[in-house]
């Protein structure tokens, strides 16, 4: 596999650094700088997270952004939009209002120099259809994120597929989130449940049922009859939000897949993701001729922030060392590289 030719590139979504950004330990420029320093040259930004004053951050913001891209050798690959269909109390937005909202975010993506825009899962297929030609004129692709527990045979995704196949627009497609390929129950989640008061027999049953591809939807009743407490009920519910799909399911839809959110929960000390088998995923992407980015999406912080200082930077670096290995790149990111970066002086590096 190391010698297989491919065009897959590395990137990072600043979703990954949410803990440090939330706590003002990292600035937006720090995120860009860090991405560039690890060769994750394609950056993905969530305007509603990183742009103060969204949707009108001001010209200075865009000037700074363009300068950073230049300075750190990065490019804006993708932006992530939200669609606040419940913005107005007591009613859901009309399709026309939704279309206006999505176009506004397409404009922002264009101004940032992005190629791809993440349409959040609640975006109706009718809105995708209504925005396709607008996106095409801007040279953008509007990509529905397929996030667990959604999948390509989910009734909602089937409705989107109908529109995409009917329109044949180059501007519509999918952005799979690799959290749809959780092969075993993430350890950071089960351990957090234990710390929060779940009893071991409940956690073990959830983990075992999930890992054995059992009926996770049956866990709620089972836990209820076993006298579960609220934390235990939470882990039963969580089990139904996690999904394992065979990564080859992406092959059929590869013509519609243009960007990938490389979700991860825990990069272990031995350099692998505990729950998501990237060593099975990346070969499928290579086989399918995928030529876009693997855009890191670290989501472990919320599960460990109660016991350690989150070190998203180190986690992302570990994921990129793994990507280099699986993509056959020369491994340039040494373990321990974090230490050299003064920005994160107060960040713990022993995430786990």
């Amino acid at each position, binding site marked *: 596999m190391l010698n297989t030719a491919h065009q897959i590139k590395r990137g990072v979504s600043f*979703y990954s650094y*949410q803990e440090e*950004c*939330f*706590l*003002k330990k990292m600035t937006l420029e720090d995120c860009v700088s860090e991405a560039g320093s690890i060769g994750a040259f394609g950056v993905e930004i*969530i305007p*509603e*997270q*990183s742009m*103060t004053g*969204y949707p009108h951050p001001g010209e200075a913001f865009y000037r700074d952004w363009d300068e950073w891209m230049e300075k750190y050798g990065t490019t804006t690959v993708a932006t992530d939009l*939200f*669609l*606040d*269909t*419940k*913005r*107005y*109390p007591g009613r859901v937005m009309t399709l026309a209002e939704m279309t206006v909202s999505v176009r506004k975010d397409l404009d922002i993506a264009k101004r940032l120099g992005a190629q791809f825009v993440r349409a*959040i*899962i*609640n975006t109706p297929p009718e809105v995708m259809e209504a925005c396709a030609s607008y996106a095409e004129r801007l040279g953008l692709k509007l990509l529905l994120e397929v996030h667990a527990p959604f999948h390509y045979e989910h009734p909602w995704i089937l409705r989107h597929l109908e529109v995409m196949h009917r329109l044949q627009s180059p501007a519509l497609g999918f952005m799979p989130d690799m959290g749809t390929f959780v092969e075993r129950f993430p350890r950071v989640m089960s351990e957090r449940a234990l710390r929060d008061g779940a009893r071991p027999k409940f956690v073990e049953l959830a983990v075992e049922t999930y890992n054995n591809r059992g009926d996770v939807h049956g866990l709620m009743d089972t836990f209820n009859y076993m006298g579960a407490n609220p934390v235990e009920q939470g882990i039963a519910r969580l089990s139904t939000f996690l999904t394992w799909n065979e990564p080859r399911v992406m092959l059929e839809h590869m013509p519609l897949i243009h960007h990938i959110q490389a979700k991860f929960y825990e990069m272990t000390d031995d350099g692998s993701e505990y729950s998501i088998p990237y060593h099975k995923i990346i070969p499928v992407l290579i086989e399918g001729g995928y030529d876009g980015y693997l855009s890191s999406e670290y989501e472990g*912080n*919320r599960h460990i*922030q*109660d016991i350690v200082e989150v070190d998203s930077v180190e986690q992302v670096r570990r994921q990129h060392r793994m990507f280099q290995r699986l993509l056959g790149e020369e491994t340039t990111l040494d373990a321990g590289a974090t230490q050299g970066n003064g920005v994160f002086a107060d960040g713990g590096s022993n995430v786990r």
Partner: protein
Amino acid sequence: MFDKYIIVEDTLRNTGDDDDVTGFQLGVRLPYYRGLGLSMVEDIEVTIDGETSSSASVSLTVHGNTYKLTDLPGVFDDRWEMGEVATVSVDKAGGLTEGPHSVAVRQRLRISYMPVPGGGTDHKTLTLRH
């Protein structure tokens, strides 16, 4: 996902003049990984030493703009940014006594892609200093 960061340490203060204390305030963050338009902030429930403030007595200040909690549903042109420390002010004649207080803040947020209300809860002991 950021529940533990909702209440900001060391921010509890009385409001008003020394001889006319009219309430108290504290710093509060959204428990969410993005900013949110204020019309979708459905509730901010402040409980001090077990006593929950009436919604009519609560105001929110984001980057210098102050809104009554009960007016938030109609605010479509302002946002609470991710990680932004907003100020929650509560009307209460005489304010709070100096010293430690048990403070709980519960937020209910309307997140469109979620079928159930979002938000979060935090509970900390803050000390009011003069």
